[in-house]
């Protein structure tokens, strides 16, 4: 656990093993999340202050209204006495325990008193309005800032988490953590907590005032409160799963609609329209059924809650009315009661709402901290040094790698040395471990046993940044980022000059097609590179790697989904790229293999053959088989 005063930012420490029941963990996560609030003590205190003033002003209003009304009623009485025939005036005044002079005085001052009371109400109304606004506004400032912090921490953490983490977690899931879960937590932290505080103050304050005003009348409404609270909670508890189910059914409806739009030709060609329509009808009917089910619950529960509140009003009116007749209650108090009653039921509703919010927020907090606490498998050692000038010799020494402790090794006892400037071709079937080898060089993963050295330095002894800056990578699936083509080429070197960028693009055979765009290098690549074709994306990726001018190059050279002339250009660009650099290539093309200084043939995580083409053709049947079945002929254009 962290010290209470410490802001819980960027908690690096992993949480202990899976001990402790889950709900308990949730509370813990929630408590930890609440500490984010205290990073903004000024805003928090200001919000709480505004809340107190606003709530007190709110509590004062019915009291003030009572005073106005009591002034009016007593004036009416006074007026009545003074208007009585002289012979019973004194009798009546005697009954009221006042003399005629006082009555006259009161009556004369009544108008002033009423106006004064009215003005005070207006003043309180303005104060209430202003501070209630301040309270909501400040709570928004607070909650949006907390959301900002959480999102920033989460993003930073995700950016730095190693590949093994991302292997286990899908993009969509992580997205939801950073959006929905943070939003739920924000609602609870920024507003739920304050609203809960406000509700409790309002509830307690109102009850105290009511008891002080009229003990018996308060007892009348008291039993209604638990009924209301329970119905709010039942409501919250029931609604959640029903809505979840409705959402699921709706997404089924949308899936069918989506498929029929995207696959319309298949549907029409298969003459499946009638079937799909029946299918869809069933889905929409089932969604309808769920909606009606929810409606039914709302239609009963909502009016019921209102009824409880209204019956409270009726009870106050009836019993209050009797008390008025018995002279134990004034009309003003009667009105005050009815106004305060609203203050009893409103916070109850809020509390019920917040309780359901809390459960969700706790679950969300749990999921968010799970990411923030995730252990990063690949990190700089505290004493890691910058990698200096290198020649580019890479040596694998008895390297074994497994994704999880105790799982099957993906690489076993791999040993080889790549001399500076050599090209190493990696061959093997799916799952043979060739991708793993190239992932180990930039330390996307760390070896489980053995070691990898670069110019004699263990990779784990140098900083990640200095290592990766010397490695250029072209992956099979090219990811481009928003922004212009220029931004994407300069991705690894944002400080590159225009001339350098153009030179890299020319070398990657990308310059020409880039210039064909009206906006040239400023052309936005669109979401995930959507404005570019597969081949164009690949060439941008090559330019991106070229610009890094890396000592070491890692290539997955399969050029899928491009037409042949593009493939030819890419091939030429790659050849240029590899020249003079230590290169590791997952080979798909015959020329690469023929030109390689070393070919490593992998099978089930082991090197089963190594050498150059001619040697291997002679003594490795596995190589010969792969050569024939997996490698594609190079493009030869006239």
């Amino acid at each position, binding site marked *: 656990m962290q010290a209470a005063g410490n802001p819980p930012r960027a908690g690096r420490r992993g949480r202990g093993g899976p001990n402790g029941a889950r709900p308990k963990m949730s509370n813990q996560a929630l408590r930890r999340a609440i500490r984010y609030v205290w990073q903004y003590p000024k805003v928090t205190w200001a919000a709480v202050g505004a809340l107190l003033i606003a709530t007190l002003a709110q509590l004062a209003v019915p009291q003030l209204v009572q005073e106005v009304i009591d002034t009016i009623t007593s004036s009416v009485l006074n007026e009545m006495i003074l208007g009585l025939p002289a012979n019973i005036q004194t009798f009546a005044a005697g009954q009221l325990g006042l003399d005629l002079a006082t009555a006259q005085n009161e009556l004369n001052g009544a108008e002033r008193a009423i106006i004064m009371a009215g003005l005070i109400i207006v003043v309180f109304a303005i104060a209430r*309005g202003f501070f209630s606004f301040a309270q909501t506004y400040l709570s928004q400032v607070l909650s949006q800032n907390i*959301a900002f912090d959480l999102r920033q921490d989460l993003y930073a953490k995700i950016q730095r988490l190693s590949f093994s983490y991302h292997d286990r977690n899908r993009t969509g899931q992580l997205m939801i953590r950073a959006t929905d879960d943070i939003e739920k937590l924000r609602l609870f932290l920024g507003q739920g907590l304050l609203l809960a505080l406000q509700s409790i103050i309002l509830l307690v304050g109102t009850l105290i005032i009511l008891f002080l005003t009229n003990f018996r009348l308060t007892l009348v409404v008291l039993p209604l409160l638990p009924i209301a609270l329970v119905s709010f909670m039942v409501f919250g508890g029931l609604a959640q799963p029903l809505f979840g189910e409705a959402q699921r059914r709706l997404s089924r409806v949308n899936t069918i609609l989506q498929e029929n739009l995207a696959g319309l030709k298949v549907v029409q060609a298969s003459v499946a329209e009638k079937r799909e329509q029946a299918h869809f009808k069933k889905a929409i009917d089932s969604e309808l059924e769920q909606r009606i089910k929810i*409606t039914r619950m709302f239609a009963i529960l909502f009016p019921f809650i209102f009824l409880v509140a209204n019956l409270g009003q009726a009870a106050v009116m009836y019993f209050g009315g009797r008390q008025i007749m018995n002279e134990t209650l004034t009309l003003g108090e009667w009105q005050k009661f009815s106004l305060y009653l609203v203050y009893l039921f409103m916070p109850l509703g809020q509390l019920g709402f917040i309780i359901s919010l809390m459960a969700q927020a706790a679950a969300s907090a749990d999921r968010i901290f799970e990411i923030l606490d995730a252990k990063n498998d690949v990190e700089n050692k505290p004493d890691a040094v910058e990698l200096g000038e290198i020649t580019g010799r890479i040596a694998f020494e008895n390297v074994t790698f497994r994704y999880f402790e105790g799982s099957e090794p993906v690489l076993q006892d791999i040993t080889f040395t790549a001399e500076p400037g050599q090209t190493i071709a990696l061959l093997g079937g799916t799952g043979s471990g060739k991708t793993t080898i190239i992932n180990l060089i930039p330390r996307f993963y760390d070896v489980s046993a053995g070691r990898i050295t670069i110019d004699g330095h263990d990779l784990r002894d140098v900083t990640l940044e200095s290592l990766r800056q010397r490695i250029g990578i072209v992956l099979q699936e090219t990811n481009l980022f928003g922004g212009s083509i220029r931004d994407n080429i300069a991705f690894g070197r944002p400080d590159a000059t225009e001339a350098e960028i153009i030179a890299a693009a020319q070398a990657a055979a990308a310059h020409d097609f880039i210039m064909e765009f009206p906006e040239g290098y400023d052309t936005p690549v669109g979401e995930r590179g959507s404005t570019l074709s597969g081949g164009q994306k690949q060439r941008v990726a090559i330019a991106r790697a070229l610009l890094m001018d890396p000592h070491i190059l890692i290539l997955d050279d399969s050029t899928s989904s491009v037409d042949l002339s593009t493939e030819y250009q890419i091939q030429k660009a790659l050849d240029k790229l590899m020249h003079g650099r230590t290169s590791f290539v997952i080979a798909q093309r015959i020329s690469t293999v023929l030109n390689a200084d070393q070919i490593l043939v992998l099978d089930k995580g082991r090197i089963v053959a190594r050498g150059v083409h001619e040697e291997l053709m002679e003594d490795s049947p596995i190589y010969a088989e792969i050569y024939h079945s997996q490698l594609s002929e190079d493009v030869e254009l006239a």
Partner: protein
Amino acid sequence: MIDRQAQLLGMEAQKAQSISGTLKRFGAHFRPYWLPLLIVAAAIIFSTWMQVRIPYLIGQAIDCYLTPYASRVALTGNTAGVTLPPAAAEFFSQMAGDTAAGSNCTYTTIDPTASYQETLTGFTQLMLVMVFLYVGSSVLTGITFYAMSWAGFRVLRDLRDDVFRHIHRLSLGYFSKHEAGDVMSRLTNDMDTIQQMIGFGVVQVVQGVLLIVWIVYVMFRDNVPFALISLVTLPLMVIFTKWFSDQARKAFRQARKEIGSVNADLQEGISGVREVQAFSREAENIEQFRANNAANRDANIKAQAYTSALAPTLEALSYVSLAIVACVGGIAILRGGSLMGSAVSLGLIFSFIQYTQRFNMPVQQIALLWTNIQSAIAGGERIFGLLDEVPELTDKPDAAAMPPIEGDVRFEGVWAEYNPGEPVLKGVDIHARPGETIAIVGPTGAGKTTIINLLPRFWDVTDGRILIDGRDIRDVTRDSLRQQIGIVLQDAFLFSDTVLNNIRYAKPDATDEEVIAAAKLARAHDFIERLGEGYQTVLGERGGGLSQGQRQLIAIARVALSDPRILILDEATSSVDTRTEREIQKAFAVLLHGRTSFVIAHRLSTIRNAHQVLVVNHGEIIERGTHRELLAARGFYYDLYMSQFRRQLDAGESDEELAEEVDAFFAPAD
């Protein structure tokens, strides 16, 4: 509470072009559910009446029972049975006459000499009526909500159903102008907006308006000057609400943009995390994200500022109106119970306080919901617009069923265009004899796809005609035609269903054995067996989880199962791994055997085995013949071949080998 406001204000506001027209269309859809709507209307009127009635009764309780009795008790100490001095008795009967004349008590008139018991009975009766009204209005609220949602959700369901059926009738012309993805997202958004409004949203607005109008009317009926003074805050409420919600909407529009860029950043940063780390871009990315994240925070705070101001302003105004009613009413009573010549009683003040306190909610709700109702109408307009799209292709009224196809296909001077005046085919003639394979080659946009779209009548010719076995295909029903044509598209489309159901998609009554046989024929059986649950494996959306090549094999199995007389193939351009590629080629070869086939060809082997190769360019067939003939001619095809197909020569196995395998496959059957 605040969040619901923010949610409503945060929605995109849109305006319909023709509100009355769209409402009429909605009306037509509501017609079958007239009974629930009638109930809703009745329930709204009754419950509004009750809500207006209650404050009035409170006023009566005060004027008819509580004040007279209480003041008499106060003045005389008279609890039941004490005799009044004669002068006092005389005064009270006089006063009773006055008050009774001024007030009209519904349930009993005021009798100043009434005993405690009598007064209590009257008061209790009044209270019982009130309780009845409370219960009644609750029940009516429930009924309104239920009936409205019942009808509304059904209308929505019907709309969805109509749209879905209509989409099936729409042909390629519509989707050449509208992206399927756009249509989808528009439909879901519009349906969503309508769903949110069609149930309770409308009811709340209608009831809110009715309540405000009714209360205003009752207040004016009871006391015109007092009503005028009490209502001064109402216009202020309306003005403030409108201003704040307009500002909030504007600010939310900005906030939506910002959250968009935050999400884009997240999406990119997470899905591209490998590149980010490979190029050591973490720090820059995090900084860049900080900027967008902060902009989002600030935009949201601004938008929420306006939203936060709305409720407190209205609350303050309602307190002000409370003060006004109490003060003005109080002073009027002090000045002889009259305000500019109209009578004001204590009870009236209480009624008016209750009335003015009821404005707050409906004003807010109308303001929040109004724009969203407009958006819903705009959404409805778009949906009706889609429904109004006339399907370009319909069966002729006298269309007959297509008899079993022999496979003789003729295109005679066929012209086609998706947009008027832009022909994509210009006088195409083709003659395919039964069992022949026709390979269609040509550059992108030449019209290859259009040719194969015409055969199953995804689209109709604008001129010329297409004959199958001598029948114009426009004279037969599309269903009977399509049932005999099998199509494998480039992007093999699979449904999120089991592998089994995907294969039997075109022939739902096929047995499991038939499905497996087809899968074996398509060489898909082996990898299907290796899937988690074999043929019962449920595929992810759009066949996710399978490789491109595997998806194609399943699509081939699907067509193989339906055993069509005419086959249309659009070969995929993207290469899959060599082994799968060979499987696909073999599967194709088996499939093509003995059927009239049209193939948009990308594979050399397909072209070489074709009986006819048609070279299409700019909507015309510029060369035709066999592979050898065309090569010998050294024309367009020759160039195409040299630049695109030659390298396939040595890839994989030779054509002869393939041909042998195919022959071997059919040998036992022959």
